[in-house]
């Protein structure tokens, strides 16, 4: 999608008449994507309302003071995928974006050893050379290759998938110089870029879409500890083992992240990730968007084969010709959409496919309030390593076994843990001298084969996490003041994501690109005119990105312009 967002070109902009429940556009869900969509639409002059079913905005981008003085980023905990265009176009820094970099990754290993990767490449070389000199060298070249792949994804991310497919398909068929399909210069540029890739890079791209991350990394590295460390990004948020084919794509997904043009950088939002949602909400409100919480949408209203608004669960009706849903497909294309309302006979198929969408939960979150800094056996003293990521993934077998347990319906007794210590990065997160520890834990299935999360298993899972941490940071079990254990049903209940899948659906080839969230809705438009999807389950999805919502909003504005032009009222827009 290529239309630059226009700040005030008069699209929509009817006189607000909220009393009668009339808007130009309604956005379902006030997670970061819903808020981004609302901000873009409001910025273009539309009269927008965001409807959030829960009492708080943020969705999975949420902070709370769960215990007095201790602030938790309840679910998502780091920012990297947030699109720079979203930051700059919505002026998020002015509205409160404040990202503290997390520059290192520590992988504690059994027996007091570790693998440490720092910002300084020389030091990282030395750390890794202790395990394998060959790998220490290979890491330089691997990072370059992955940055190139991340850059490729960056180019792809800037265009809507249907346009891209048209452009690429056309270019494959025809001469590269002449496009029959009408596409923007930007899409043509992307197509050219893609087709100019070297055979080696295209091979890497295909490998990343199809291989397991363990196999992919095995082409580069020999040491198990480094492969395990690097494979962490390939399983986060996915019910996959590093040995599952397709997991290499998830690795790539995390390489699309950048901070200020530097791929693979991560930042911690001051105040916790909830402050990201608050920041975007401020941006949206500054352009006039209205955000209503405790407003649960029952279904989308249709009239004469077009979107007409929404009905709330309390029976209220809000009218708008445009509705965007940031929810997962089971909701957006299932619960909210009456198949009868979809023109033609597409409705039933759409609903069925939405029901079959793969989005089982796989991860839990354990947030700890602790009385002091943890002492890792490998690096017991306080130091810069505590302000970076710390990952318990001591070997590929270890992670694979953790996955196996979940595959058969249990939680991992010795889980994969990706943690940060937010209070080291931001002293506002805990009382002086005390700390909070944010542990992202895999694997935890949505439904247990034996027992029930609500019947003691949630706490048993929390115990397994603490036991595992204590293997690497002895004594941590005695430092814990408070503990919050969240498992997929909790993510579902609090963030409203069916199954509790943090990406609104697995990131695998069968659910990506033109298949995300559905072949009939891959370009943000659904088969019901005026109804759009804009959440993590669209486009490249997943993570605190805002990219899908931005593209969806631009698509809406583009469609409105086209409609206005056709009706002869939008003469001033091209």
């Amino acid at each position, binding site marked *: 999608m290529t239309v630059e967002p226009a700040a005030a070109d008069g699209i929509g902009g009817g006189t607000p008449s909220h009393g009668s429940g009339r808007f130009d556009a309604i956005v379902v869900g006030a997670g970061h994507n819903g808020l981004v969509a609302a901000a873009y639409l409001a910025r273009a002059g539309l009269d927008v309302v965001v409807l959030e079913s829960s009492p708080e905005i943020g969705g999975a981008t949420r902070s709370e003071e769960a215990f007095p003085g201790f602030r938790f980023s309840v679910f998502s905990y780091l920012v990297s995928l947030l699109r720079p265009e979203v930051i700059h176009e919505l002026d998020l820094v002015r509205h409160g974006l404040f990202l503290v970099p997390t520059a290192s990754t520590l992988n504690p290993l059994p027996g007091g050893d570790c693998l440490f990767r720092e910002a300084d490449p*020389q030091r990282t070389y030395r750390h890794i050379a202790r395990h394998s000199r060959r790998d220490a*060298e290979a890491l330089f070249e691997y990072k370059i290759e992955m940055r190139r792949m991340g850059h490729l994804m960056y180019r792809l991310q800037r265009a809507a998938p249907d346009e891209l497919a048209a452009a690429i398909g056309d270019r494959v068929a025809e001469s590269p110089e002449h496009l029959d399909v009408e596409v923007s210069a930007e899409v043509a540029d992307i197509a050219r870029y893609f087709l100019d890739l070297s055979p080696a890079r295209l091979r890497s791209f295909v490998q990343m879409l199809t291989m397991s991350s363990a196999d992919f990394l095995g082409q580069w590295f020999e*040491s198990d500890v480094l492969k395990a460390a690097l494979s962490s990004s390939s399983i986060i948020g996915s019910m996959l083992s590093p040995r599952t084919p397709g997991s290499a794509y998830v690795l790539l997904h995390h390489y699309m992240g950048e901070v200020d043009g530097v791929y693979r950088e991560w930042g911690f939002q001051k105040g916790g990730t909830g402050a990201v949602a608050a920041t975007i909400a401020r941006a949206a409100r500054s352009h006039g968007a209205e955000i209503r919480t405790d407003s649960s949408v029952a279904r989308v209203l249709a009239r004469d084969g077009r979107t007409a608004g929404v009905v709330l669960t309390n029976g209220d009706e809000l009218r708008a010709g445009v509705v965007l849903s940031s929810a997962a497909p089971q909701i957006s294309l299932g619960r909210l959409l009456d198949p009868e309302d979809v023109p033609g006979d597409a409705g039933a198929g759409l609903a069925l496919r939405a029901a079959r969408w793969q989005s089982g939960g796989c991860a839990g979150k354990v947030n700890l309030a602790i009385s002091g800094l943890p002492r890792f056996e490998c690096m017991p003293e306080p130091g810069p390593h505590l302000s970076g990521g710390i990952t318990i993934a001591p070997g590929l077998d270890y992670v694979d076994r953790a996955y196996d347990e979940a595959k058969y319906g249990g939680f991992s007794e010795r889980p994969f843990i990706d943690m940060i210590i937010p209070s080291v990065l931001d002293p506002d997160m805990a009382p002086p001298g005390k700390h909070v520890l944010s542990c992202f834990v895999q694997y935890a299935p949505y439904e247990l084969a034996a027992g029930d999360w609500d019947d003691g298993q949630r706490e048993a899972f929390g115990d397994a996490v603490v036991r595992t941490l204590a293997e690497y940071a002895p004594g941590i079990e005695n430092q814990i003041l408070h503990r919050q254990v969240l498992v997929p049903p909790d993510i579902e209940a609090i963030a409203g994501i069916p199954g509790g899948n943090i990406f609104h659906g697995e990131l695998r080839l069968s659910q990506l690109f033109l298949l995300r969230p559905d072949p009939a809705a891959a370009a943000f438009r659904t088969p019901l005119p005026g109804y759009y999807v804009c959440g993590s389950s669209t486009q490249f999805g997943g993570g605190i990105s805002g990219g899908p919502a931005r593209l969806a909003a631009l698509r809406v504005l583009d469609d409105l312009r086209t409609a206005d032009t056709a009706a002869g009222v939008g003469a001033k827009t091209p």
Partner: protein
Amino acid sequence: MPAMPRRAPQGTQAVQRALALLRSFTTEAPEHRLSELAAAHGLHPSTAHRLLGVLEAEGLIGRSPDSQAYRWLPGAPGAGDAGSAPRHNGLRPLEPLRTPFHRRTSALCESDAWRDWSGYTCVETYEPTPEREYWAVRNAAALIDVSPLFKYEISGADAERLLDRVMTRDFSKCRPGRVMYTSWCNEEGHLLQDGNVQRLSRERFLVSAAEPCLRWFQDCGWSMDVDVGDVSEEIGVLALQGPRARAIAEAATTGIDFGAMRYFDLAAGEIGSGAGGGPVTVTRTGYTGDLGYEFWVAAEHAEALWDALVEAGQDHGLLPAGLLGLDMARAEAGLVLIDVDYVSAAHAEIEVLKVTPAEAGLGFTVKLDKQADFVGRRALELERDRGPAWAMVGLEVDWFELERLWSEIDLRPQVVGQSASREPTPVFAPGGWQVGQCTTRFFSPLLKKYIGLATVRGEAADPGTELDVEVAVGYGRRRARARVVERPFFNPPRKTAVAPTPGVKG
């Protein structure tokens, strides 16, 4: 040829490695996979496989029945036990790496000006400004710690074959006792690195390189009967450079006939005036374009070497010199520096940053007439037919041009006392478009000219071509008219003279 690490006469390296492998098997950790062992010992898997095969044949280790893992056979002699094996290789916060000369250099570093070089803490200047150290190189002698170079020992029946496969130079022509300066490239003919290779014996070489390349050498030697070992931290290197270098070297060592040593020769001797001072290998090489030698010494004898050279240098005006002085000297010598004047193809993120040896001014190291096939040959043959797209040239801005520029702001030229700048600046056709970039430049107090190394389009590379180079004049940026000149800028006869004496004029 006896080599510096006397710890390892021919063949003993394999024994040491086999013993180290054997010690990995403990009662606590009785089983290991090949890949683990190779990784833990810095060996190529094929090397590890060969050594483990011997240990297995000797009945010292076995294979586990259910997997490919190797297993300690209880009672086998030589295997380690849990008591002696360290529990872990735990990481303390990393200490800065120190060269084997660090106690000596740090005692003399008045300026506290240090610079990171491959993770080592190195002296930038001993005194607050580099002038005296730079002049020592040209006028007397300077002693420079260049230990952070990566060093790889390549040994075995196929050692020459591997060098000939990897390197653009012809190693069938490198006799034991000689050193060869060479480039090495990837398959596209793009330059990976440049460095010196010592031929210590028929089957033993020592490669020095600015960046790690163990994996590259090992992979290129796949299936060859060759071992590639990283000996970077075991060997200290001192460069003794300047017109008095021979006299000092003679006084500081025994057993080497410096009169007979030609440029790029290699010789082994002893430190100090008597026997027992410890072994040292000397090469007549350097990075200053002057008369000079480099001393390669096992870390345990490093301080003895330093002391012997400093003592011998007292009557010859010897000064320890830091990296800034070295950088000025190498720029005058027109020697390119990786990551400054060119980017290794292994680290270049986009294609336009990659260069061939010819484009980096190292075309003379490419021997397309050599017998052996080598990595990058096909691409470099194509380049020979087509001509390189870029050229590394010397640029010279004369004094009157400098006066003209600074007179615009009513100053005399402010160019003295600045060390070589590494910030690339654009080079233009006179008054026109950018044709390249100047990557190293400074005012040479010896030559009294502002000189630079620049990569420019092939058509702008002929000596005498006039180009504009951007220079800082006050707060402004001005285009100075420069002339393309031959490199090196400075090339004294003493650098290559047979039996050089201090009297040889530069």
